[in-house]
Protein backbone atom coordinates (compact mmCIF):
# COMPACT_ATOMS: atom_id res chain seq x y z
CA UNK A 1 0.00 0.00 0.00
CA UNK A 2 1.56 3.26 -1.11
CA UNK A 3 1.11 6.56 0.79
CA UNK A 4 -1.16 7.78 -2.00
CA UNK A 5 -3.18 4.58 -1.66
CA UNK A 6 -3.72 5.41 2.01
CA UNK A 7 -4.70 8.97 1.10
CA UNK A 8 -7.34 7.81 -1.37
CA UNK A 9 -8.63 5.18 1.05
CA UNK A 10 -8.91 7.52 4.03
CA UNK A 11 -10.34 10.47 2.09
CA UNK A 12 -12.95 8.24 0.41
CA UNK A 13 -14.01 6.59 3.66
CA UNK A 14 -14.14 9.92 5.47
CA UNK A 15 -16.29 11.40 2.71
CA UNK A 16 -18.88 8.60 2.53
CA UNK A 17 -19.10 8.00 6.28
CA UNK A 18 -19.11 11.74 6.98
CA UNK A 19 -21.89 12.37 4.47
CA UNK A 20 -24.01 9.56 5.89
CA UNK A 21 -23.51 10.52 9.52
CA UNK A 22 -24.21 14.19 8.79
CA UNK A 23 -27.37 13.32 6.79
CA UNK A 24 -28.77 10.98 9.42
CA UNK A 25 -27.92 13.37 12.24
CA UNK A 26 -30.03 16.01 10.45
CA UNK A 27 -32.88 13.57 9.76
CA UNK A 28 -33.01 12.24 13.31
CA UNK A 29 -32.97 15.71 14.83
CA UNK A 30 -36.18 16.73 13.03
CA UNK A 31 -39.52 16.77 14.86
CA UNK A 32 -42.17 14.15 13.98
CA UNK A 33 -44.81 15.07 11.40
CA UNK A 34 -48.50 14.22 11.22
CA UNK A 35 -50.00 11.92 8.62
CA UNK A 36 -52.28 13.35 5.98
CA UNK A 37 -54.89 11.86 3.65
CA UNK A 38 -55.01 12.46 -0.09
CA UNK A 39 -57.10 11.11 -2.94
CA UNK A 40 -55.67 8.58 -5.37
CA UNK A 41 -56.05 7.57 -8.98
CA UNK A 42 -56.56 3.93 -8.03
CA UNK A 43 -59.92 4.88 -6.60
CA UNK A 44 -60.85 7.10 -9.52
CA UNK A 45 -61.22 10.13 -7.30
CA UNK A 46 -60.14 13.65 -8.02
CA UNK A 47 -57.24 14.84 -5.91
CA UNK A 48 -57.31 18.08 -3.97
Amino acid at each position, binding site marked *: *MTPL*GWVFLIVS*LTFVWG*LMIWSFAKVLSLPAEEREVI*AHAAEGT*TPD
Partner: protein
Amino acid sequence: MTEQQQQWGTRLGVILAVAGSAVGLGNFLRFPGQAAANGGGAFMIPYFCALLFLGIPIGWAEWTMGRYGGLKGFHSAPSIMGMMGRGAIPRYLGTIGVLIPLAVSFYYTYIEAWCLGYAWHYLTGGIGIAAGAPIAEQSAAASQFYDNLTGRDTNGVLAGGSYKTLVFWVITFGLNIVLVYRGISKGIEKFTTWAMPVMAVCALVVLIRVLTLGTPDPTLPDQNVINGLGYMWNPDFSALTNAQTWLAAAGQIFFSLSVGFGVIINYASYMKKKDDVVLSGLAAAATNEVFEVGFGGLITLTAAFVFLGLSGTIAAVAGGSFGLGFNTLPVVFAQMGAFGNIVGGTWFFMLFLAAITSSVSMYQPSLAFFQETLGWTRRNATTLMVSICVIGSFFVMYYSRASIFWSTIDDWVGTFLIFVLAMVQIIVFAWIFGIERGWKEAHAGAHIRIPTFFKIVMKYIAPVYLLVVFIAFSVQNLPDWVRSVAAEPLRQGAMLLIVSVIALLVVCTRIGEKRWRAAGLDVDGKTTQLD
Protein backbone atom coordinates in the same frame (compact mmCIF):
# COMPACT_ATOMS: atom_id res chain seq x y z
CA MET B 1 -55.79 -1.82 2.17
CA THR B 2 -56.57 0.98 -0.29
CA GLU B 3 -53.98 3.18 -1.90
CA GLN B 4 -55.47 6.09 0.07
CA GLN B 5 -54.08 4.57 3.23
CA GLN B 6 -50.65 3.90 1.74
CA GLN B 7 -48.07 6.18 3.27
CA TRP B 8 -44.64 5.90 4.75
CA GLY B 9 -44.77 5.79 8.51
CA THR B 10 -41.57 7.69 9.22
CA ARG B 11 -38.90 9.73 7.45
CA LEU B 12 -36.32 7.19 8.40
CA GLY B 13 -38.50 4.44 6.93
CA VAL B 14 -38.57 5.89 3.43
CA ILE B 15 -34.84 6.68 3.52
CA LEU B 16 -33.95 3.14 4.56
CA ALA B 17 -36.36 1.68 2.00
CA VAL B 18 -34.78 3.69 -0.84
CA ALA B 19 -31.29 2.95 0.47
CA GLY B 20 -32.23 -0.73 0.73
CA SER B 21 -33.41 -0.62 -2.86
CA ALA B 22 -30.07 0.85 -3.93
CA VAL B 23 -27.79 -1.38 -1.87
CA GLY B 24 -27.55 -4.67 -3.71
CA LEU B 25 -25.08 -7.25 -4.91
CA GLY B 26 -23.31 -4.67 -7.07
CA ASN B 27 -22.16 -2.73 -4.01
CA PHE B 28 -20.15 -5.68 -2.72
CA LEU B 29 -19.25 -7.53 -5.91
CA ARG B 30 -19.27 -5.11 -8.86
CA PHE B 31 -17.79 -1.96 -7.34
CA PRO B 32 -14.45 -3.41 -6.14
CA GLY B 33 -13.84 -5.11 -9.49
CA GLN B 34 -14.61 -1.92 -11.40
CA ALA B 35 -12.34 0.15 -9.17
CA ALA B 36 -9.43 -2.29 -9.27
CA ALA B 37 -9.64 -2.61 -13.05
CA ASN B 38 -9.90 1.15 -13.66
CA GLY B 39 -7.15 2.90 -11.76
CA GLY B 40 -7.64 1.71 -8.15
CA GLY B 41 -7.76 4.73 -5.85
CA ALA B 42 -7.67 7.06 -8.87
CA PHE B 43 -11.03 5.56 -9.91
CA MET B 44 -12.58 7.42 -6.99
CA ILE B 45 -12.04 10.78 -8.76
CA PRO B 46 -14.41 10.07 -11.68
CA TYR B 47 -16.56 8.02 -9.32
CA PHE B 48 -17.24 10.91 -6.94
CA CYS B 49 -17.63 13.32 -9.90
CA ALA B 50 -20.37 11.04 -11.23
CA LEU B 51 -21.95 10.86 -7.78
CA LEU B 52 -22.11 14.66 -7.47
CA PHE B 53 -23.01 15.58 -11.03
CA LEU B 54 -25.12 12.63 -12.12
CA GLY B 55 -26.34 10.33 -9.37
CA ILE B 56 -27.43 12.73 -6.63
CA PRO B 57 -29.02 15.42 -8.90
CA ILE B 58 -31.00 12.93 -10.99
CA GLY B 59 -31.98 11.23 -7.75
CA TRP B 60 -33.30 14.52 -6.36
CA ALA B 61 -35.31 15.01 -9.57
CA GLU B 62 -36.80 11.54 -9.24
CA TRP B 63 -37.69 11.99 -5.57
CA THR B 64 -39.35 15.31 -6.37
CA MET B 65 -41.30 13.91 -9.31
CA GLY B 66 -42.51 11.00 -7.23
CA ARG B 67 -43.73 13.12 -4.34
CA TYR B 68 -45.37 15.62 -6.70
CA GLY B 69 -47.18 12.82 -8.56
CA GLY B 70 -48.29 11.16 -5.33
CA LEU B 71 -49.88 14.38 -4.12
CA LYS B 72 -51.90 14.47 -7.34
CA GLY B 73 -53.01 10.89 -6.75
CA PHE B 74 -50.59 9.06 -9.04
CA HIS B 75 -48.09 6.40 -8.05
CA SER B 76 -46.54 4.98 -11.20
CA ALA B 77 -43.99 6.33 -13.64
CA PRO B 78 -46.38 6.48 -16.65
CA SER B 79 -49.03 8.54 -14.87
CA ILE B 80 -46.54 10.82 -13.11
CA MET B 81 -44.39 11.41 -16.18
CA GLY B 82 -47.46 11.93 -18.36
CA MET B 83 -48.69 14.61 -15.97
CA MET B 84 -45.35 16.34 -15.44
CA GLY B 85 -44.28 15.88 -19.06
CA ARG B 86 -47.66 17.15 -20.28
CA GLY B 87 -48.60 14.48 -22.73
CA ALA B 88 -48.73 11.02 -24.18
CA ILE B 89 -45.07 10.63 -25.16
CA PRO B 90 -43.67 11.00 -21.63
CA ARG B 91 -46.56 8.89 -20.34
CA TYR B 92 -45.81 5.95 -22.64
CA LEU B 93 -42.07 6.34 -22.15
CA GLY B 94 -42.91 6.14 -18.47
CA THR B 95 -43.95 2.52 -18.93
CA ILE B 96 -40.19 1.84 -18.93
CA GLY B 97 -40.32 2.77 -15.26
CA VAL B 98 -42.67 -0.17 -14.66
CA LEU B 99 -40.98 -2.53 -17.10
CA ILE B 100 -37.51 -2.20 -15.54
CA PRO B 101 -38.32 -3.27 -11.98
CA LEU B 102 -40.82 -5.89 -13.14
CA ALA B 103 -38.55 -7.57 -15.71
CA VAL B 104 -35.43 -7.30 -13.55
CA SER B 105 -37.34 -9.02 -10.74
CA PHE B 106 -37.70 -12.09 -13.00
CA TYR B 107 -34.00 -12.87 -12.55
CA TYR B 108 -33.07 -10.82 -9.52
CA THR B 109 -35.20 -12.96 -7.20
CA TYR B 110 -33.56 -16.03 -8.74
CA ILE B 111 -30.08 -14.68 -7.91
CA GLU B 112 -31.36 -13.72 -4.48
CA ALA B 113 -32.37 -17.37 -4.01
CA TRP B 114 -28.75 -18.38 -4.74
CA CYS B 115 -27.60 -16.15 -1.88
CA LEU B 116 -30.14 -17.76 0.44
CA GLY B 117 -29.00 -21.18 -0.79
CA TYR B 118 -25.34 -20.39 -0.15
CA ALA B 119 -26.12 -18.98 3.31
CA TRP B 120 -28.14 -22.08 4.15
CA HIS B 121 -25.40 -24.46 3.03
CA TYR B 122 -22.69 -22.53 4.88
CA LEU B 123 -24.67 -22.47 8.10
CA THR B 124 -25.45 -26.19 7.81
CA GLY B 125 -21.97 -27.53 7.08
CA GLY B 126 -20.43 -25.81 4.07
CA ILE B 127 -20.54 -26.23 0.30
CA GLY B 128 -18.13 -29.16 0.00
CA ILE B 129 -14.76 -27.43 -0.48
CA ALA B 130 -11.86 -29.39 1.06
CA ALA B 131 -9.61 -26.77 2.66
CA GLY B 132 -6.50 -28.97 2.48
CA ALA B 133 -6.77 -29.61 -1.26
CA PRO B 134 -4.80 -27.62 -3.85
CA ILE B 135 -6.39 -24.26 -4.69
CA ALA B 136 -7.23 -25.45 -8.21
CA GLU B 137 -9.27 -28.34 -6.79
CA GLN B 138 -11.01 -26.03 -4.35
CA SER B 139 -11.88 -23.66 -7.19
CA ALA B 140 -13.26 -26.58 -9.20
CA ALA B 141 -15.40 -27.65 -6.22
CA ALA B 142 -16.69 -24.10 -5.80
CA SER B 143 -17.53 -23.92 -9.51
CA GLN B 144 -19.26 -27.29 -9.38
CA PHE B 145 -21.45 -26.17 -6.47
CA TYR B 146 -22.25 -22.90 -8.23
CA ASP B 147 -23.16 -24.64 -11.48
CA ASN B 148 -25.39 -27.17 -9.70
CA LEU B 149 -27.23 -24.59 -7.64
CA THR B 150 -27.75 -22.12 -10.48
CA GLY B 151 -28.29 -24.57 -13.32
CA ARG B 152 -25.59 -23.01 -15.47
CA ASP B 153 -24.57 -26.34 -17.00
CA THR B 154 -27.75 -27.01 -18.87
CA ASN B 155 -31.27 -25.74 -19.35
CA GLY B 156 -34.01 -27.19 -17.17
CA VAL B 157 -32.66 -26.73 -13.67
CA LEU B 158 -36.24 -27.03 -12.50
CA ALA B 159 -36.58 -30.50 -14.00
CA GLY B 160 -33.14 -32.00 -13.74
CA GLY B 161 -31.08 -29.80 -11.47
CA SER B 162 -31.01 -29.33 -7.74
CA TYR B 163 -34.57 -29.21 -6.38
CA LYS B 164 -33.17 -26.95 -3.68
CA THR B 165 -32.86 -24.15 -6.21
CA LEU B 166 -36.61 -24.17 -6.67
CA VAL B 167 -37.23 -24.41 -2.93
CA PHE B 168 -35.00 -21.41 -2.24
CA TRP B 169 -36.69 -19.46 -5.02
CA VAL B 170 -40.19 -20.25 -3.69
CA ILE B 171 -39.15 -19.09 -0.20
CA THR B 172 -37.53 -15.95 -1.58
CA PHE B 173 -40.34 -15.03 -3.95
CA GLY B 174 -43.00 -15.81 -1.34
CA LEU B 175 -41.29 -13.60 1.21
CA ASN B 176 -41.09 -10.76 -1.30
CA ILE B 177 -44.77 -10.99 -2.17
CA VAL B 178 -45.87 -11.17 1.46
CA LEU B 179 -43.86 -8.04 2.26
CA VAL B 180 -45.19 -6.14 -0.73
CA TYR B 181 -48.78 -7.26 -0.13
CA ARG B 182 -48.62 -6.10 3.47
CA GLY B 183 -48.13 -2.62 2.11
CA ILE B 184 -45.73 0.27 2.12
CA SER B 185 -45.64 0.95 5.84
CA LYS B 186 -46.46 -2.43 7.39
CA GLY B 187 -44.52 -4.51 4.90
CA ILE B 188 -41.66 -2.80 3.06
CA GLU B 189 -40.88 -0.10 5.62
CA LYS B 190 -41.05 -2.37 8.64
CA PHE B 191 -38.83 -4.95 6.94
CA THR B 192 -36.16 -2.56 5.65
CA THR B 193 -36.06 -0.75 8.99
CA TRP B 194 -34.60 -3.86 10.64
CA ALA B 195 -32.99 -5.47 7.58
CA MET B 196 -30.69 -2.54 6.85
CA PRO B 197 -29.13 -2.40 10.33
CA VAL B 198 -28.79 -6.21 10.35
CA MET B 199 -27.09 -6.03 6.96
CA ALA B 200 -24.70 -3.38 8.31
CA VAL B 201 -23.86 -5.57 11.31
CA CYS B 202 -23.21 -8.59 9.05
CA ALA B 203 -20.98 -6.45 6.81
CA LEU B 204 -19.13 -5.15 9.85
CA VAL B 205 -18.55 -8.69 11.17
CA VAL B 206 -17.11 -9.82 7.83
CA LEU B 207 -15.07 -6.61 7.49
CA ILE B 208 -13.50 -7.03 10.93
CA ARG B 209 -12.64 -10.64 10.15
CA VAL B 210 -11.05 -9.68 6.84
CA LEU B 211 -9.06 -6.76 8.27
CA THR B 212 -7.69 -8.95 11.07
CA LEU B 213 -6.48 -11.72 8.75
CA GLY B 214 -2.94 -10.38 8.90
CA THR B 215 -0.57 -12.67 6.99
CA PRO B 216 -2.26 -16.07 7.19
CA ASP B 217 0.56 -17.92 5.40
CA PRO B 218 4.01 -16.88 6.76
CA THR B 219 5.66 -18.53 3.76
CA LEU B 220 3.88 -15.96 1.55
CA PRO B 221 4.56 -12.69 3.41
CA ASP B 222 3.40 -10.50 0.52
CA GLN B 223 -0.10 -11.91 0.77
CA ASN B 224 -1.26 -9.74 3.65
CA VAL B 225 -4.14 -7.39 4.40
CA ILE B 226 -2.19 -4.19 3.76
CA ASN B 227 -1.11 -5.35 0.31
CA GLY B 228 -4.67 -6.52 -0.31
CA LEU B 229 -5.93 -3.01 0.40
CA GLY B 230 -3.12 -1.68 -1.77
CA TYR B 231 -4.32 -3.80 -4.70
CA MET B 232 -7.68 -2.09 -4.53
CA TRP B 233 -6.64 1.44 -3.48
CA ASN B 234 -3.17 2.28 -4.88
CA PRO B 235 -3.89 4.90 -7.55
CA ASP B 236 -2.90 4.54 -11.16
CA PHE B 237 -3.34 8.07 -12.50
CA SER B 238 -2.73 7.02 -16.09
CA ALA B 239 -6.22 5.43 -16.00
CA LEU B 240 -7.73 8.92 -15.76
CA THR B 241 -6.70 9.63 -19.34
CA ASN B 242 -8.70 6.64 -20.51
CA ALA B 243 -12.36 7.35 -21.38
CA GLN B 244 -13.23 3.81 -20.27
CA THR B 245 -12.42 4.74 -16.65
CA TRP B 246 -14.86 7.66 -16.68
CA LEU B 247 -17.50 5.55 -18.38
CA ALA B 248 -17.07 2.74 -15.85
CA ALA B 249 -17.29 5.18 -12.92
CA ALA B 250 -20.45 6.84 -14.24
CA GLY B 251 -22.00 3.44 -14.97
CA GLN B 252 -21.20 2.18 -11.48
CA ILE B 253 -22.72 5.22 -9.76
CA PHE B 254 -25.71 5.15 -12.00
CA PHE B 255 -26.64 1.52 -11.46
CA SER B 256 -25.67 1.54 -7.82
CA LEU B 257 -27.97 4.39 -6.80
CA SER B 258 -30.99 2.88 -8.60
CA VAL B 259 -31.75 6.17 -10.33
CA GLY B 260 -33.74 5.71 -13.52
CA PHE B 261 -35.00 2.38 -12.26
CA GLY B 262 -38.64 3.34 -11.67
CA VAL B 263 -38.43 2.63 -7.93
CA ILE B 264 -37.62 6.01 -6.36
CA ILE B 265 -40.42 7.73 -8.30
CA ASN B 266 -42.85 5.14 -6.96
CA TYR B 267 -41.55 5.11 -3.39
CA ALA B 268 -41.51 8.92 -3.19
CA SER B 269 -45.14 9.01 -4.36
CA TYR B 270 -46.17 7.74 -0.93
CA MET B 271 -44.62 10.74 0.81
CA LYS B 272 -46.60 13.52 2.39
CA LYS B 273 -46.84 17.07 1.11
CA LYS B 274 -44.43 18.54 3.65
CA ASP B 275 -42.03 15.59 3.62
CA ASP B 276 -38.48 16.49 2.79
CA VAL B 277 -37.07 15.01 -0.40
CA VAL B 278 -33.71 16.80 -0.56
CA LEU B 279 -32.19 15.59 2.69
CA SER B 280 -33.89 12.21 2.33
CA GLY B 281 -32.45 11.71 -1.16
CA LEU B 282 -29.01 12.67 0.06
CA ALA B 283 -29.21 10.40 3.10
CA ALA B 284 -30.31 7.43 0.98
CA ALA B 285 -27.49 8.03 -1.51
CA ALA B 286 -24.95 8.42 1.30
CA THR B 287 -26.07 5.13 2.87
CA ASN B 288 -25.60 3.39 -0.44
CA GLU B 289 -22.10 4.84 -0.71
CA VAL B 290 -21.12 3.60 2.74
CA PHE B 291 -22.09 0.06 1.80
CA GLU B 292 -20.32 0.37 -1.54
CA VAL B 293 -17.10 2.18 -0.65
CA GLY B 294 -16.94 1.53 3.08
CA PHE B 295 -17.71 -2.18 2.95
CA GLY B 296 -17.50 -3.33 -0.67
CA GLY B 297 -14.25 -1.43 -1.17
CA LEU B 298 -12.56 -3.08 1.80
CA ILE B 299 -13.86 -6.63 2.02
CA THR B 300 -14.03 -8.47 -1.26
CA LEU B 301 -10.70 -7.97 -2.99
CA THR B 302 -8.72 -7.73 0.24
CA ALA B 303 -9.93 -11.18 1.27
CA ALA B 304 -9.25 -12.59 -2.19
CA PHE B 305 -5.73 -11.12 -2.27
CA VAL B 306 -4.72 -12.44 1.14
CA PHE B 307 -5.51 -16.03 0.23
CA LEU B 308 -5.18 -16.15 -3.54
CA GLY B 309 -2.38 -13.64 -4.13
CA LEU B 310 -2.05 -11.10 -6.91
CA SER B 311 -2.55 -13.46 -9.84
CA GLY B 312 -5.53 -15.18 -8.22
CA THR B 313 -7.18 -11.84 -7.47
CA ILE B 314 -6.59 -10.55 -10.99
CA ALA B 315 -8.19 -13.73 -12.33
CA ALA B 316 -11.10 -13.32 -9.92
CA VAL B 317 -11.72 -9.74 -11.08
CA ALA B 318 -11.55 -10.89 -14.70
CA GLY B 319 -14.20 -13.50 -13.88
CA GLY B 320 -16.74 -10.74 -13.23
CA SER B 321 -18.99 -9.97 -10.28
CA PHE B 322 -20.64 -13.35 -10.05
CA GLY B 323 -17.40 -15.25 -10.47
CA LEU B 324 -15.90 -13.17 -7.68
CA GLY B 325 -18.85 -13.57 -5.36
CA PHE B 326 -19.90 -17.16 -5.93
CA ASN B 327 -16.71 -18.90 -7.07
CA THR B 328 -13.74 -17.04 -5.61
CA LEU B 329 -15.01 -16.02 -2.19
CA PRO B 330 -16.10 -19.56 -1.21
CA VAL B 331 -12.48 -20.62 -1.79
CA VAL B 332 -11.37 -17.72 0.40
CA PHE B 333 -13.79 -18.73 3.17
CA ALA B 334 -12.45 -22.29 3.01
CA GLN B 335 -9.02 -20.94 4.04
CA MET B 336 -10.40 -19.30 7.17
CA GLY B 337 -10.42 -22.50 9.17
CA ALA B 338 -13.09 -23.10 11.79
CA PHE B 339 -14.64 -19.68 11.23
CA GLY B 340 -14.87 -20.08 7.46
CA ASN B 341 -18.42 -21.41 7.43
CA ILE B 342 -19.64 -18.77 9.87
CA VAL B 343 -18.02 -15.96 7.90
CA GLY B 344 -19.32 -17.47 4.64
CA GLY B 345 -22.83 -17.86 6.08
CA THR B 346 -22.79 -14.28 7.38
CA TRP B 347 -21.50 -12.98 4.05
CA PHE B 348 -24.16 -14.71 1.96
CA PHE B 349 -26.93 -13.87 4.42
CA MET B 350 -25.81 -10.25 4.11
CA LEU B 351 -25.95 -10.54 0.31
CA PHE B 352 -29.42 -12.07 0.66
CA LEU B 353 -30.57 -9.10 2.74
CA ALA B 354 -28.99 -6.70 0.25
CA ALA B 355 -30.85 -8.48 -2.53
CA ILE B 356 -34.24 -8.73 -0.83
CA THR B 357 -34.31 -5.07 0.22
CA SER B 358 -33.77 -4.36 -3.48
CA SER B 359 -36.24 -6.92 -4.82
CA VAL B 360 -39.18 -5.81 -2.66
CA SER B 361 -38.79 -2.41 -4.27
CA MET B 362 -39.12 -4.00 -7.70
CA TYR B 363 -42.65 -5.33 -7.12
CA GLN B 364 -44.28 -2.22 -5.67
CA PRO B 365 -44.11 -0.09 -8.88
CA SER B 366 -45.96 -2.66 -10.99
CA LEU B 367 -48.45 -3.34 -8.21
CA ALA B 368 -49.26 0.38 -7.97
CA PHE B 369 -49.37 0.59 -11.78
CA PHE B 370 -51.91 -2.23 -12.17
CA GLN B 371 -54.05 -0.80 -9.40
CA GLU B 372 -54.21 2.67 -10.83
CA THR B 373 -54.47 1.77 -14.51
CA LEU B 374 -57.00 -1.05 -14.20
CA GLY B 375 -58.75 0.26 -11.10
CA TRP B 376 -58.27 -3.10 -9.41
CA THR B 377 -58.08 -3.88 -5.73
CA ARG B 378 -54.69 -4.57 -4.18
CA ARG B 379 -55.54 -8.28 -4.02
CA ASN B 380 -56.41 -8.54 -7.73
CA ALA B 381 -53.47 -6.41 -8.82
CA THR B 382 -51.17 -8.58 -6.71
CA THR B 383 -52.59 -11.70 -8.37
CA LEU B 384 -51.87 -10.28 -11.82
CA MET B 385 -48.37 -9.17 -10.86
CA VAL B 386 -47.55 -12.52 -9.25
CA SER B 387 -48.81 -14.36 -12.34
CA ILE B 388 -46.57 -12.29 -14.61
CA CYS B 389 -43.60 -12.75 -12.29
CA VAL B 390 -44.10 -16.51 -12.04
CA ILE B 391 -44.24 -16.82 -15.83
CA GLY B 392 -41.17 -14.61 -16.28
CA SER B 393 -39.23 -16.35 -13.53
CA PHE B 394 -40.16 -19.76 -14.92
CA PHE B 395 -38.51 -18.90 -18.23
CA VAL B 396 -35.46 -17.51 -16.43
CA MET B 397 -35.06 -20.60 -14.26
CA TYR B 398 -35.87 -23.14 -16.95
CA TYR B 399 -33.57 -21.61 -19.54
CA SER B 400 -30.70 -21.41 -17.10
CA ARG B 401 -27.82 -22.51 -19.34
CA ALA B 402 -24.84 -20.19 -19.01
CA SER B 403 -27.22 -17.48 -17.69
CA ILE B 404 -27.89 -16.51 -21.32
CA PHE B 405 -31.61 -15.91 -20.92
CA TRP B 406 -31.53 -13.68 -17.88
CA SER B 407 -28.36 -11.84 -18.88
CA THR B 408 -30.17 -10.76 -22.05
CA ILE B 409 -32.91 -9.19 -19.91
CA ASP B 410 -30.22 -7.65 -17.75
CA ASP B 411 -28.46 -6.14 -20.77
CA TRP B 412 -31.49 -4.64 -22.48
CA VAL B 413 -33.79 -3.83 -19.59
CA GLY B 414 -31.55 -3.74 -16.50
CA THR B 415 -28.86 -1.70 -18.23
CA PHE B 416 -29.83 -0.07 -21.54
CA LEU B 417 -33.34 1.06 -20.59
CA ILE B 418 -32.15 2.51 -17.28
CA PHE B 419 -30.12 5.04 -19.26
CA VAL B 420 -33.18 5.81 -21.37
CA LEU B 421 -35.51 6.28 -18.41
CA ALA B 422 -33.04 8.47 -16.51
CA MET B 423 -32.60 10.61 -19.60
CA VAL B 424 -36.37 10.98 -20.05
CA GLN B 425 -36.83 11.78 -16.36
CA ILE B 426 -34.23 14.51 -16.18
CA ILE B 427 -35.53 16.10 -19.40
CA VAL B 428 -39.12 16.00 -18.15
CA PHE B 429 -38.06 17.47 -14.82
CA ALA B 430 -35.63 20.16 -15.94
CA TRP B 431 -36.98 21.10 -19.36
CA ILE B 432 -40.71 20.28 -19.61
CA PHE B 433 -41.89 20.67 -16.04
CA GLY B 434 -39.26 23.40 -15.80
CA ILE B 435 -36.20 23.72 -13.61
CA GLU B 436 -37.63 26.71 -11.70
CA ARG B 437 -40.85 24.88 -10.81
CA GLY B 438 -38.93 21.70 -10.16
CA TRP B 439 -36.51 23.56 -7.91
CA LYS B 440 -39.37 25.12 -5.96
CA GLU B 441 -41.15 21.80 -5.70
CA ALA B 442 -37.98 20.04 -4.50
CA HIS B 443 -37.55 22.59 -1.73
CA ALA B 444 -41.12 22.35 -0.45
CA GLY B 445 -40.65 20.99 3.06
CA ALA B 446 -36.91 20.58 2.50
CA HIS B 447 -34.69 20.59 5.56
CA ILE B 448 -31.58 21.59 3.63
CA ARG B 449 -31.15 23.75 0.57
CA ILE B 450 -29.54 22.45 -2.57
CA PRO B 451 -26.68 24.78 -3.63
CA THR B 452 -27.95 26.99 -6.48
CA PHE B 453 -25.16 25.69 -8.69
CA PHE B 454 -27.12 22.43 -8.97
CA LYS B 455 -29.77 24.20 -11.06
CA ILE B 456 -27.17 24.33 -13.82
CA VAL B 457 -26.14 20.78 -13.05
CA MET B 458 -29.71 19.48 -13.31
CA LYS B 459 -30.60 21.45 -16.41
CA TYR B 460 -27.40 21.17 -18.43
CA ILE B 461 -24.57 19.16 -16.93
CA ALA B 462 -26.45 16.02 -15.86
CA PRO B 463 -28.35 15.56 -19.17
CA VAL B 464 -25.20 16.16 -21.24
CA TYR B 465 -23.07 13.98 -18.95
CA LEU B 466 -25.70 11.25 -19.17
CA LEU B 467 -26.00 11.59 -22.93
CA VAL B 468 -22.24 11.28 -23.41
CA VAL B 469 -22.08 8.22 -21.15
CA PHE B 470 -25.10 6.70 -22.89
CA ILE B 471 -23.66 7.22 -26.38
CA ALA B 472 -20.27 5.83 -25.35
CA PHE B 473 -21.96 2.89 -23.66
CA SER B 474 -24.13 2.20 -26.72
CA VAL B 475 -21.24 2.39 -29.16
CA GLN B 476 -19.25 0.04 -26.95
CA ASN B 477 -21.95 -2.55 -26.33
CA LEU B 478 -24.94 -2.41 -28.66
CA PRO B 479 -23.37 -3.88 -31.82
CA ASP B 480 -22.29 -7.00 -29.90
CA TRP B 481 -25.61 -7.26 -28.12
CA VAL B 482 -27.57 -7.08 -31.37
CA ARG B 483 -25.32 -9.68 -33.00
CA SER B 484 -25.66 -12.04 -30.05
CA VAL B 485 -29.46 -11.76 -30.09
CA ALA B 486 -29.48 -12.56 -33.80
CA ALA B 487 -27.28 -15.62 -33.25
CA GLU B 488 -28.80 -17.16 -30.11
CA PRO B 489 -32.39 -18.48 -29.88
CA LEU B 490 -32.38 -18.17 -26.08
CA ARG B 491 -31.64 -14.47 -26.38
CA GLN B 492 -34.44 -14.13 -28.94
CA GLY B 493 -36.78 -15.81 -26.46
CA ALA B 494 -35.77 -13.33 -23.77
CA MET B 495 -36.41 -10.43 -26.17
CA LEU B 496 -39.83 -11.89 -26.96
CA LEU B 497 -40.63 -11.97 -23.26
CA ILE B 498 -39.54 -8.33 -22.88
CA VAL B 499 -41.65 -7.23 -25.85
CA SER B 500 -44.67 -9.12 -24.49
CA VAL B 501 -44.40 -7.35 -21.14
CA ILE B 502 -44.01 -3.98 -22.88
CA ALA B 503 -47.17 -4.66 -24.92
CA LEU B 504 -49.10 -5.49 -21.75
CA LEU B 505 -47.90 -2.35 -19.99
CA VAL B 506 -48.77 -0.13 -22.96
CA VAL B 507 -52.30 -1.58 -23.12
CA CYS B 508 -52.75 -1.05 -19.37
CA THR B 509 -51.48 2.52 -19.68
CA ARG B 510 -54.03 3.16 -22.43
CA ILE B 511 -56.82 1.75 -20.24
CA GLY B 512 -55.61 3.81 -17.32
CA GLU B 513 -55.45 6.97 -19.40
CA LYS B 514 -59.15 6.57 -20.32
CA ARG B 515 -60.10 5.86 -16.71
CA TRP B 516 -58.20 8.86 -15.39
CA ARG B 517 -59.72 11.19 -17.97
CA ALA B 518 -63.20 9.88 -17.20
CA ALA B 519 -62.54 10.49 -13.50
CA GLY B 520 -61.48 14.07 -14.24
CA LEU B 521 -57.86 13.60 -13.22
CA ASP B 522 -55.25 15.96 -14.60
CA VAL B 523 -53.67 13.36 -16.86
CA ASP B 524 -51.75 15.82 -19.04
CA GLY B 525 -50.73 18.24 -16.31
CA LYS B 526 -52.83 21.11 -17.65
CA THR B 527 -54.25 22.43 -14.40
CA THR B 528 -51.04 21.73 -12.51
CA GLN B 529 -49.43 24.51 -14.51
CA LEU B 530 -51.25 26.89 -12.18
CA ASP B 531 -49.49 25.56 -9.06
